[in-house]
């Protein structure tokens, strides 16, 4: 809009400045500090790191910096394994989420118009209830003596209780459960916009339903598929609560690793290095997501 915005006269420069400054101080600055600390040495002190940055001595600042922590990350296969395992778990979970979420979103988009707001509200509703509580609910279900095993044994489907809790399977269930709304909503948004007469046109032109689905519905839903997948994949990589409560000791995830480096080992510099590592892994998907998201916002103009 090229016209003189009336808000400009309301408080010249003031309106955007406050939140801008806030984010610069409470978001950007902390990151620079993490970056700095990831390059410093641990110390048995409170706080347990030795600052390498002294205003008085710029030279010492640069000579004191080293990549020791990052060398540790590379030497110790634990971190590499945790990284790879995080990416694998997040990727598999995202695929599962697509598989579970698509039929739900599709059915919602095909439901009668008057029921759709209710269905959307029903999908959003669990999001308003505590994440922790929802994960906690699964502990009682997946325990060896838990409700799932009771039900399955009661039905005579299995003889011995399944061991699900504290395995990677439980982590998958937890992620799919917790992130399902994030997958269903973008999918629904892109499916709902689709004109059903497109499918009718494809059928009329001789395409069987399954091919109409693959050649019309799925490509048109691509923005929703990409947005939903990234929205699930990115936080899943850094997930802590789900692997901690549902996963076992062998479930390696980078977020969990950072947590234990920080709280159990109290090695703040190493924890910072892990944070930087995690950030580097996620830079590309985050940039893509931001691009997709802002383009969708602009598109609504």
């Amino acid at each position, binding site marked *: 809009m090229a016209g003189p915005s009336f808000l400009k006269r309301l408080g010249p420069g003031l309106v955007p400045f406050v939140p801008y400054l806030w984010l610069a101080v409470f978001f950007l600055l902390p990151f620079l500090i*993490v970056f700095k600390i990831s390059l410093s040495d641990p110390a048995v002190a409170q706080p347990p790191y030795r600052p390498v940055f002294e205003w008085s001595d710029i030279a010492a600042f640069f000579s004191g910096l080293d990549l020791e922590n990052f060398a540790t990350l590379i030497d110790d296969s634990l971190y590499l394994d945790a990284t790879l395992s995080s990416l694998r778990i997040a990727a598999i979970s995202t695929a599962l989420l697509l598989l579970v979420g698509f039929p739900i979103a*599709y059915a919602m988009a095909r439901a009668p*118009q008057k029921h759709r707001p209710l269905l959307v509200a029903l999908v959003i509703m669990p999001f308003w*209830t505590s994440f922790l509580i*929802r994960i906690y609910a699964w502990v009682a279900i997946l325990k060896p003596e*838990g409700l799932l095993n009771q039900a399955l044994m009661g039905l005579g489907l299995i003889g011995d209780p399944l061991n699900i809790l504290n395995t990677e399977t439980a982590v998958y269930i937890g992620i799919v459960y917790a992130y399902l709304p994030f997958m269903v909503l973008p999918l629904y948004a892109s499916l709902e916009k689709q004109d059903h007469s497109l499918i009718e046109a494809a059928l009329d032109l001789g395409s069987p339903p399954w091919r109409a689905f693959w050649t019309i519905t799925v490509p048109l839903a691509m923005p929703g598929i990409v947005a939903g997948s990234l929205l699930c994949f990115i936080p899943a990589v850094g997930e802590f609560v789900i692997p901690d409560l549902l996963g076992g000791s062998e479930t390696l995830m980078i977020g969990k690793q*950072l947590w234990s480096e920080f709280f159990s080992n109290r090695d703040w510099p190493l924890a910072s290095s892990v944070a930087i590592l995690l950030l580097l892994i996620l830079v590309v998907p985050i940039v893509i997501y931001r691009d997709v998201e802002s383009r969708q916002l602009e598109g609504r103009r």
Partner: protein
Amino acid sequence: MNRRLSLFNVTSLVLGFAFLYLPILLLMVYSFNASRLVTVWGGFSTQWYSALFRNEPLMEAAWVTLRIALLSASAATILGTLAAIALTRYGRFTGRTLFTGMIYAPMVMPEVITGLSLLLFFVAIGLDRGFWTITLAHTTLTMCFVTVVVQARLLTFDRSLEEAAMDLGAPPLRTFFSVTLPLIAPSIVAGFLLAFTLSLDDLVIASFNTGPGATTLPIRIYSQVRLGLSPEVNAASTILIGIVAVGVLTATLLSKRSLLRSDRTAG
């Protein structure tokens, strides 16, 4: 479109919603269990609710959480709304790309990173960890969500409404308060509720930034859950879910009623 749903679609919906709601329902049912074992039904009882209200650390944590959520959500609503106005109404200004980047990043950033970086920042500036550090951290995180919600509304906002007000003689400030604000108010309220819920719910960022005397409910619940399942946690969860359910249902009914009203007159 009032076609009937196919069997496949109905099955997807039924299974999908069962998956979403069954765990929560089971958790609520077992909060009324007489047995201490969370997985074995021992008859109906409300004893865990009375135990819950006698559990002083838990009640204390609930009170702390509520205060943090109210404070941080209020601050986040103001900051987030200002940011949304800046992004939609100021066109291209210097550092706009950095600004939008800082708005989107906290939403997708893993919480462990945000939590850790804020903690190191507070240590660096010598701020004691506790109530205020959690509040500041939550404000930072949740203002971004408020921004996105309000920004989405402002982008679909018909600018000719503001022009009409000015054309009819209302100066900019009066235009903002008599036309713009009333019309974007629902999105601001939605942003506030979102910020409030996120703050209420957060475990990871709060864990990093907590200090003595500032144990929030999620931190308390988490430490109890790690020790084993407890029916008291079920009771606390049920109350929380109940509050949220009533709130969401009221909001849905209210918006539905206004929809019905406009339907009736349009028809």
